[in-house]
């Protein structure tokens, strides 16, 4: 496989969606290709950083309101 093809398979690789034979070919390419390995590292870094954008504390008034709603729901059920 070429690098151009490999980069389009990376999400499927990370999600475990490649068939065993494709996966073997993918890993074989990656092990001998610095560029594709770097690209995979970049994609993993992007995924990790996307995850970090979630850090956002729940505002206290909203949290209090939600907890009250929960207690009300619990008492009613």
């Amino acid at each position, binding site marked *: 496989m*070429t*690098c*151009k*093809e490999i*980069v*389009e398979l*990376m*999400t*499927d690789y990370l*999600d475990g*969606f490649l068939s065993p034979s494709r996966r073997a070919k993918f890993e074989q390419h990656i092990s001998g*290709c*610095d*560029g*594709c*390995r*770097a*690209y995979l*590292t*970049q*994609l993993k*870094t*992007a*995924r990790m*950083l*996307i*995850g*970090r*954008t*979630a*850090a*956002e*504390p*729940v505002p206290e008034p*909203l*949290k209090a309101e*939600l*907890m009250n*709603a*929960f*207690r009300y*729901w*619990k008492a009613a*059920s």
Partner: protein
Amino acid sequence: MSVLLFSHQTPWPEDRPTYPDPRVVRDPIDPDLEALRSADEAAFEALITRLHGPMMRLAMTYLRDRAAAEDAVRARRRKESRILTFTSLFRRDGGPTVDPSRFGADRMWSSPPDSWTNVPESRLLGRETIDRVRAAIDDLSPKQREVVILRDVAGLDADEVCGLLSISPANQRVRLHRGRASVRKSLEDYLT
């Protein structure tokens, strides 16, 4: 925000069939949701803490998309639709995710990427980088953005996202792949 998951009212406009279907949550596989079934208050608190950020981001993007859609309708009424139609015709989800000029005639890298191992962690994880990532997520097409947020921000798995958005596994993968690739590109422009 997460309380919306338990109500029967959709928090998004009825005329957008691609929005998540809250009924999917009927049969939870999430451990937090399981604990919730036994009315565990600590579990509920953990759940809202975990989901607040992603839910807010998702809600904000829907509100923004809705505003953009309303603007588009208004623009069409003003008979400016020609430009809008023109752009939407050429804005498609196909094509390669990496600039083809970075590969040689043999389709191997001619201008290979850097693995960012020399980027100091303080810079990589710094506020400016995260802001950059946020902006890149905001710039995605709405369909890519909702999948990226649900997968990589809210941490749902592929099956859950397909169920929630009523999309095929192949469609989910394409949207995620293109979304992540755009964020990667934006990071590369910034870090390299």
